[in-house]
Structures are given as structure tokens and as C-alpha cells.
């Protein structure tokens, strides 16, 4: 009897079904007005109502508020995960987690590099016990996140990316893999954690976040977007910033203090002539474009330039100029002196590109850590650095984000390509605290070139993040 009643109810109810990153509403009774239902549009292609999967929870609420019978066949939550141990959060990490819970389990937590953002994520996983998908930007971080989760979770951790497609209740995926496979992955998780979340909200790959049913969402970053449109879109996809601490807030007890030394260097005569010639090509063309698009950002100008042969020529000259500045003769000599001076310290050398990293590796015989170095070797290198068998590492981007780099005291910024955000992250690599530690950051800046203003801007980035240590 009960079965028949249930069957009758089901036959009159709206059915929700997950379909490749969207929610399909089937059996919608004639006359039911879905105007105002969150995200729902009529899909004339197949004759159904459809909403993005990220709207699932809001849609269920909307239907229930109106007492509309509902059969929810969107899987989403597969029941609680078990086998978690207490990750042991520091007080500020626990406070961050609490703020996220109070915000309805949606929001971004901003903590400086080296302060244990991953630990906050582990806290969220262990507390909510929801099936969780963690998105990380690189293959390097894929492995690291799995390792950190495995330390507090007793079941195997799934992995999606770097050639693996193993989905489990707790899974780590690269952004790229998630973007390509979210139509399938999106149905399985209740909690979505996005590391380095500032990469989202600007249009590129945002669809991945729209295609998952997960209602609980946590974003982690050290460098949240300050641009209003970007921040607003991120708030829509993940939630607003719910907790924020800067380097200055944690310096002393949880992060080491640091000093910055800027070394101003000159180009050689040959380099100067070449740089001047390249500058002439790109400044005249790009200045004209900036005049045409006065409010335009750099990406706007690049887009505009790429539409004409002249613009593309200017961009090529701009890149060539960047390559020239990446490792000048004076930078080579300064680096040699600094490496000799800090021979007994652990040094991280940051470059603008891989070519410079390899050139430095050959010249100064220090180990490069680039995207070309495979995972087993990378792990062995970090281990050797940890144990003191290697004293210096040189890298362009691999050390920028998230990677758990062993304690280092000296950083040398030979060049950078990604501005303020990259600089904050690089400095963060040196702030792992130890008794009496005061880290030292050298910036090599070439006089009378674009590097002067770039260096000024990236230092402003640190200041604006309320670091009082400069």
C-alpha cells in the first residue's frame, strides 16, 4: 500500500536528474510556473527544463518552499566519509574553518603562503565528512595533496589528472582534468575545495565549478583578486571571502620575519642597444593601443594587438625584451656573488622562465626544479634539499604555488613574469618559521628598464597585504 502511495507521489513529482554538468527537470506538471526557479531555462534542443548543476541545492530549496513534490535523482551526496583523524588545527586555522561554517559552508579563506591552508581544507573534510573533490592547479600539487590527505584519512585517496582517473569519495584533481571531465565528476561530491582559487572567476575554466552539484564550497588563496568584477564572480562560484589574514598577522609566531634587498644592475652596452631597439618597436605600438583602450587591462591590449600583424610584431618584440632581461650579464655576476656569500644557507633562486633556470643551473651547478623534471626526481630533489645535500634550487614557476618547499633562508628573485601575486607567493616560500630565523630576499632589478616599475609594483603588493616587515 505504502509502495503504491509512493509510486503515485513519484508519478506526480518533478524529477531532477544530473546530466553532464547540468540538472534536468523531468515530468514537470503542465501549468507549473518555473519562472524564478534558480538557474532554470527551457532547453528547446531536447524539450526539457535545465539548470547548471551548481544550482541544484538552490533549486531543491525553491521547489520545496513551494511544496512542489520532488524526486531528486541527482546523486550528489553519497553519504558521509569515514576514517578521518583530527588534523590538529592551529588556532587561526580553526577560526578560519569556523568562519566558513558560519557562512553556510561557502566561501574563500585567505591565508599567507606557508601558513597551512591545506590544513584548513583537511579540517573542512574531516568536519563535514562530505564526499570531497579537491581541485589543484598543477600535477605537482596533485601528489602533495594526496599525501597530506592520506596522513589524516585512512582510506585510499582518489586521483584525477596526470594520466590517472581514479574517483573515490575523497578525490584530488587538477584544474585541467576537472575542466575536461567535470560532466562526469560533477555528480559525485558534496564538498568542493579549490586550492589557489584566485585562478577562477575570470572566465577561464569557470564552467568546471558550475558543473558540480557540490553545495559546500571552500576556496583557498594567499592572493585573492582585488578587481571587483573578478571578486564578485568568484563569490558567485565559491562564496565571499569569509576569513583573511596577511603575512604581517602571522609573522613572529607562525611565520618568519624577512628583509628585502633590492640590487639595481645595469645592462651591458650590447644589451642596452638591443633592448632599446626592441623597446622602440613595442612601446610605440602598444602605447597607441593603450591610447585607444584607455581603461584596458594588459590582457585587453594583448588581445587588441594580436588582431594586426603590427601588433603581433610588437608583442613578439615585447617577449624578446623580456627574454633579454630575464638573465642579463649583470644578473649572472650578481647571482654568482650572492651564491658565494650565502654558501652555507639554503637558497631559492626564482627566474622569469625555464630557459633562465637551466642557464643558471649549468653555470652555477645548482639543481633546477621545473615542470620538465618528473615527479620521482622532484620528490628526491626536495628531499635532498630538506636534508642539506642540496643547498640551492632554481625555478621559474614550480616553486610559486602551493608546493611544500622545505625550509629556506635566502631567496634571490632574478626575474618574474607574473607580477605581484607571484612575488607574494615566492616570498612566502621563505617564511617557514624556525627559532631566530630572519629570511632574506634579494631582488635583481635592471636600471632604466621595465623591471624598475615591475619591481615597485610587486613590492606594493606585499605592502598592500599589510606586511610590516619591509
Amino acid at each position: 500500500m505504502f509502495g503504491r502511495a509512493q509510486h503515485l507521489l513519484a508519478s506526480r513529482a518533478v524529477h531532477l536528474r544530473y546530466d553532464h554538468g547540468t540538472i534536468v527537470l523531468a515530468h514537470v506538471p503542465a501549468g507549473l510556473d518555473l519562472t524564478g526557479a534558480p538557474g532554470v531555462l527551457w532547453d528547446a534542443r531536447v524539450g526539457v527544463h535545465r539548470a547548471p548543476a551548481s544550482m541544484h541545492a538552490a533549486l531543491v530549496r525553491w521547489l520545496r518552499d513551494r511544496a512542489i513534490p520532488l524526486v531528486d535523482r541527482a546523486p550528489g551526496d553519497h553519504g558521509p566519509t569515514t576514517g578521518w583523524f583530527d588534523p590538529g588545527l592551529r588556532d587561526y586555522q580553526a577560526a578560519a574553518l569556523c568562519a566558513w561554517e558560519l557562512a553556510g559552508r561557502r566561501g574563500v579563506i585567505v591565508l599567507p603562503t606557508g601558513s597551512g591552508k591545506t590544513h584548513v581544507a583537511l579540517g573542512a573534510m574531516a568536519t563535514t565528512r562530505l564526499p570531497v573533490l579537491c581541485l589543484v592547479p598543477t600535477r605537482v600539487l596533485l601528489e602533495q595533496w594526496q599525501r597530506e590527505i592520506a596522513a589524516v584519512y585512512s582510506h585510499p585517496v582518489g586521483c584525477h589528472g596526470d594520466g590517472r582517473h581514479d574517483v573515490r569519495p575523497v578525490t584530488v584533481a587538477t584544474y585541467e582534468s576537472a575542466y575536461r571531465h567535470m560532466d562526469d565528476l560533477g555528480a559525485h561530491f558534496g564538498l568542493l575545495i579549490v586550492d589557489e582559487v584566485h585562478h577562477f572567476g575570470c572566465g577561464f575554466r569557470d564552467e568546471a565549478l558550475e558543473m558540480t552539484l557540490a553545495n559546500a564550497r571552500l576556496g583557498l588563496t594567499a592572493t585573492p583578486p582585488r578587481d571587483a568584477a573578478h571578486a564578485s564572480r568568484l563569490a558567485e562560484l565559491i562564496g565571499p571571502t569569509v576569513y583573511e589574514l596577511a603575512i604581517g598577522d602571522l609573522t613572529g609566531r607562525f611565520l618568519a620575519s624577512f628583509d628585502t634587498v633590492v640590487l639595481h644592475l645595469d645592462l651591458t652596452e650590447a644589451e642596452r642597444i638591443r633592448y632599446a631597439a626592441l623597446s622602440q618597436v613595442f612601446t610605440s605600438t602598444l602605447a597607441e593601443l593603450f591610447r585607444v583602450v584607455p581603461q584596458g587591462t594588459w590582457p585587453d591590449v594583448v588581445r587588441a594587438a594580436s588582431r594586426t600583424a603590427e601588433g603581433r610584431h610588437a608583442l613578439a618584440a615585447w617577449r624578446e625584451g623580456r627574454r633579454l632581461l630575464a638573465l642579463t650579464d649583470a644578473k649572472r655576476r650578481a647571482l654568482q656573488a650572492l651564491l658565494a656569500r650565502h654558501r652555507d644557507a639554503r637558497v631559492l633562486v626564482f627566474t622569469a622562465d625555464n630557459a633562465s633556470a637551466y642557464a643558471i643551473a649549468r653555470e652555477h651547478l645548482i639543481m633546477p626544479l621545473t615542470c620538465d623534471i618528473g615527479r620521482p626526481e622532484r620528490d628526491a630533489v626536495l628531499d635532498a634539499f630538506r636534508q642539506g645535500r642540496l643547498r640551492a634550487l632554481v625555478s621559474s614557476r614550480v616553486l610559486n604555488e602551493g608546493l611544500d618547499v622545505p625550509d629556506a633562508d635566502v631567496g634571490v628573485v632574478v626575474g618574474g613574469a607574473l607580477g605581484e601575486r607571484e612575488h607574494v607567493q615566492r616570498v612566502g616560500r621563505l617564511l617557514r618559521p624556525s627559532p631566530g630565523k630572519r629570511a632574506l630576499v634579494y631582488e635583481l632589478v635592471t636600471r632604466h628598464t621595465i623591471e624598475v616599475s615591475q619591481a615597485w609594483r610587486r613590492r606594493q603588493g606585499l605592502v598592500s597585504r599589510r606586511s610590516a616587515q619591509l
Partner: protein
Amino acid sequence: MSADAPRSYRLLGGAVIPRLLVDSDYPWLRVLLDERERFVGRAQREFDARLRDPLPVEGPSGKKHVVLRVLAQLGRSERRSPVPPRHARRLLFEAAALTPESRTALLARVASSFGVAPAELEGSLFADLPGERRLADLPGSLSPAELALRANLRLIQGLLGRATGVTLEVEGNARVLVRLAKLRGLLCIVSRPAPGAEAVLELSGPLALFRHTVLYGRALGSLVPHLAWCQRFRLRARCLLEDRLADLQLATGDPIFPSAEPRRFDSQLEERFAKDFRKVAPDWDVLREPEPIPVGARLVFPDFALQHRSDHSRRWLVELVGFWTPDYLRRKLTLYREARVPNLILCIAEDRACAEEELPAGAVILRFRRRVDATAIRRIVT
């Protein structure tokens, strides 16, 4: 596509015109292939440096850019070094961290431990990294004509990577395209605007309802090489290029590298059924992929037609259904009834039901698990 990469297309009004490679490009392609041949065994980096200078016969920069990417994809490279690079790095860099020796002395000492000269050790250090790997021969004998076709395919796929949706008018091979599109998670609406006209496939992805997304561009592009197996086709895509939507058109005869011949059977299940049925009903013909059936403006694609050899009026259509709901089956049956197809067998996978409701009445439905029972089908048709 990086912003300063030369363009392999031009925008003309609301249209995007791809710069396809044609016969007149063969001379510079020949020169390029010969030049690459000359660098076989040398570092990729050296070949890249050579290409920064003009070739004796130079191709347009946009086309050359695409061709080089195709060559990079086709051309294997190999590592050649007297010392395993990873081992060389570990020993040399760890030795450098521990002693204040000069670079020259250190290289000499570590090289001697490997029994090689310092220059050989230096040459081995990064010999496994992309720029240092040695160029190997291209597979087979790649002619300029084939290289041009492959480059055109890549060029079109690159543009379709920015596509928000595709309309395809096809004659022949429509079924394969529909199957491939569905396998790739695309929505595929098939229609026939007029009796006897070509089938029209509207391809896009579920999320395309909400925004102009290029999320499905890769899947859309993957269909292009299969178009060569259509008797006739016309493709129209809406591509998001340089912040605006532009139409891309492609048609039969455009020089695109084709896919391998489509498989005769979609799956082992179908292949096994055809084999089993021929065995149990030797006086019946099994026609794979019969003509699509028009229903109003839409088309449906049965999997098999079973036809008695001596009496062609005894003809049944068979469709194998994977995931299904009773509602789905009902709609399917309605379509076949509208098309006045009286003899239809739907074979439904028992373990792939999406609902537990009752099956529609008045239909010949056969459940299967791993194998469709050919004997049961024979009983139905005879």
C-alpha cells in the same frame, strides 16, 4: 593559441576564413621536410633555432606555425647521452653543494667518476628535457601533401576548439557522427528539413544553454576527421574568436586529413549479436545500420534491419538500448509508430535501467544482460 602567434585564419565580416594549405604550399613544405631531415639526430633546440631564420622557400607564417606543431606532434625524439641525465644531475649538483671547488674542477672530478669527459657530462645534464632531445625520423614517408592535410585538420580543430556549437548537414555516415557526438557528451539533434534532404545535426553541449562556452570545442573538433567518410557534408560552426562570434564553414572537398575507416560495429555487443543471429537464422540477412527513418522533421537510427532473404516484406528493425527509462522507451516507441514502423524490437539492458517503473505496453521488448539472445529474436521474427 598564444597572442603573438601568427594567425592561420582571417576574419571577414562575421565569417572566419581558415588559411588552408593547398597545392601551392607544397614547395615550401618540401623544403621544410628536407630541412628537418637534415637535423635528425640533433637537438630539438638546434632545429628550433634554425627555423628562426628564413628557409630557402618560405611559407606564410600562420601556416608554418600550424605545420611546425604538426611536425612536433608526429616527430618522435629520443634521448642520447653517455651518462643517464638524472644520475648526472644528482651527482654533480650534490657534489657542488658540498665542496667549494671551482666549476671546472668539479666537472672534471664528477665526469671522471662516470668515465667520461667533462664536456660529455655537461652534454648529458639535461639531455632528457624537451629542447635537448634528439630529433628522430618522421614515421613513414611523410609527403608535403599529407603534411598539408594534417596541418589543415589541426587548423580546423584549433578553430573548432573555440566553437560554441556546430551545425552539420550530412549525407551518409550520419549515424557514426551521431554516435561519436553522444560518446563525447554532446547533445545531438538530428532532423531532416525536407523529405529526401540531407540529415541536419545540431551539435552543442548541455551547458551551452546558459552561455557561449568553448567547453565542448575539443569534442566538436574531434568529429572533423570523420566527415571525410560522408558522401557530402557542410559544417557551420559559431566560433568565439577575438571576443566575437564568427561563422566557420567547411564542406565536402575541403582538404582535411581523414580518420581511419569507421568501425563496422559500435560495440562488441552488436558484433556478437550479428554473428549469433546469422548462425541461428541462416535464411535471414542482417543489415547493419539501415537507412535512418524520418519522423516528421526528425530522424531515428535503428541498429539493425533483419530481412528474410526470399521474402523482403518480412522485415524487422532492431534497436539496442543502453541506459533507459520507461519514459524514454515510450518516446522512442511513439517515434517509430509515427513513422509507421510496425515490426520493431527494442533490446534493453537489464542492468542499466534508470527507473523501476513499468515498461510501456504493446511493444516487443527483449531484456538482455551481456548478450542479446539471437534465438529469442529469431522466434519473434519467424
